[in-house]
């Protein structure tokens, strides 16, 4: 019994997979509330599948790239559940999860929103195999005339004139990918791709 989730984009998406198919899922799109939405999403997906946490045998998490704060919510949740339940935790590049949902027969790119007017992106061949390492770049650098999936393609039509679905990763795709043993597995570590912004140490102000 596999629990899959991804918090690397504005979508907080969860799925439960029993080895042959997805038996429960839950998704919400809200860019700023990953910390609030993930746990209720997991509870809802498990309930829909009538599965208790104890029955899980494996946890899969999208490891980005994606905005750091939301990304960490998913990864720390996966690692903690794995440690407590004593089950293995694996990661999958979140761009690969978007790629699973792309239904075209030609090479394509996946570009997600990296904020600061940049995208996280990678290239895929017609069969959906990733051809480049995930990277962060200006849309103009990643520009592609062919099909482009992900929120980045929707946000930057000048660089990605042929936006195609899906816009966000879907944990059901993630679960199926891993269930079918077609995923490129990674350790459950965030793909930050950017160094921390150290320009401004936190102003230690009273909050009272």
């Amino acid at each position, binding site marked *: 019994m596999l629990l899959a989730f991804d918090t690397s984009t504005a979508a907080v998406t969860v799925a439960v997979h029993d080895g042959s198919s997805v038996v429960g899922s839950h998704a919400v799109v809200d860019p700023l509330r*990953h910390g609030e939405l993930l746990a209720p999403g997991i*509870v809802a997906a498990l309930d829909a599948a009538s599965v208790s946490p104890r029955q899980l045998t494996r946890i899969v998490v999208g490891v980005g790239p994606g905005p750091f704060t939301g990304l960490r919510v998913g990864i720390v*949740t996966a690692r*903690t559940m794995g440690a407590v339940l004593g089950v293995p935790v694996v990661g999958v590049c979140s761009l690969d999860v978007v790629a699973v949902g792309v239904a075209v027969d030609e090479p394509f790119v996946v570009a997600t929103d990296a904020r600061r007017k940049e995208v996280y992106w990678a290239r895929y061949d017609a069969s959906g195999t990733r051809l480049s390492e995930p990277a962060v770049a200006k849309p103009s650098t990643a520009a592609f005339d062919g099909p482009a999936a992900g929120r980045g393609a929707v946000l930057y039509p000048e660089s990605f004139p042929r936006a195609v679905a899906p816009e966000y990763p879907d944990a059901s795709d993630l679960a199926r990918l891993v269930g079918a043993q077609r995923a490129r597995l990674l350790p459950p570590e965030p793909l930050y791709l950017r160094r921390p912004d150290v320009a*401004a140490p936190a102003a230690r102000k009273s909050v*009272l």
Partner: protein
Amino acid sequence: MADDPLVVGIETSCDETGVGIVQGNTLLADAIASSVEEHARFGGVVPEVASRAHLEAMVPMIERASAEADVALDDVDAIAVTAGPGLAGALLVGVAAAKALALSLGKPLYGVNHLSAHVAVDQLEHGPLPERCVALLVSGGHSSLLLVDDVTAAVEPLGATIDDAAGEAFDKVARLLGLPFPGGPHIDNAAREGGHITLDFPRGLTSNRDLERHRFDFSFSGLKTAVARWVEAREQRGEPVPVADVAASFQEAVCDVLTRKAVDACRATGAGHLVIGGGVAANSRLRVLAEERAARHQIKVRVPRPALCTDNGAMVAALGSELVRRGREPSAWDLPADSSMPVTTVVA
């Protein structure tokens, strides 16, 4: 369980990743990882660096705490976590981990206030809190006086700093004197050698006029500026800076105001106990002066040992255990991290 709930507490509001386990008022484990060294060269805590460090330290600290306490996580009664106030991104790592723990184990979750936890931790050292006490919380991020009638439900702000926190003042003055970050302990040490000359540094918000409006508030930025001016003038004249003396006089000014107002707050509210918490509570002069002044008014001072004064998971667990014991409502699964959680909210 009713009297001695077994609770795991998680703290990630700033640069310490803490996981503590308590059973009632007994401390079983207090695992802590700090990213303070990674921040030292920036002279302050860098939020993203702290958040990354929390992610890496979380599972190791959970495992260390449960090994240290020698308890199976399955046996715990609840999970408590700091929900605020603090750095938003840092808080979120702890809150997400606590939810993962609670939902995996099928246990209730309590998202608690960091400041109440700083007060509740004293129960691990000195037993149940009295009916009414005043708490002086002084750290790098806070300087407040609270009236605590019930640490699980009734915490009221009496006053707070209107500019720098006390620990922040220690850190800034240390920097000025060329001492390493965090500066509190270094000033404390340097001051032991000082006192040959006494410098008359200002006591913020203690004039009669200020006392009318700010009786229980603090201000340390004027003090910091006064120290900076004094040091600069010395340097301009090409004279050496007597680090120990400056440290001693600065420390005296901070401790004088903190203890004077804390004792005044106890007397004004009829509280017979003063609890001191937060990193600055480790200060040796603050402890001595507080004891001295409180004793004159038959007020008892309770200061936990330094390891429990700085941010840690045990304090969160201590508050969590008290919440369970009193049958308080747990938090919902959509508990948010609240970087500016008001002090009056004990459980979110």
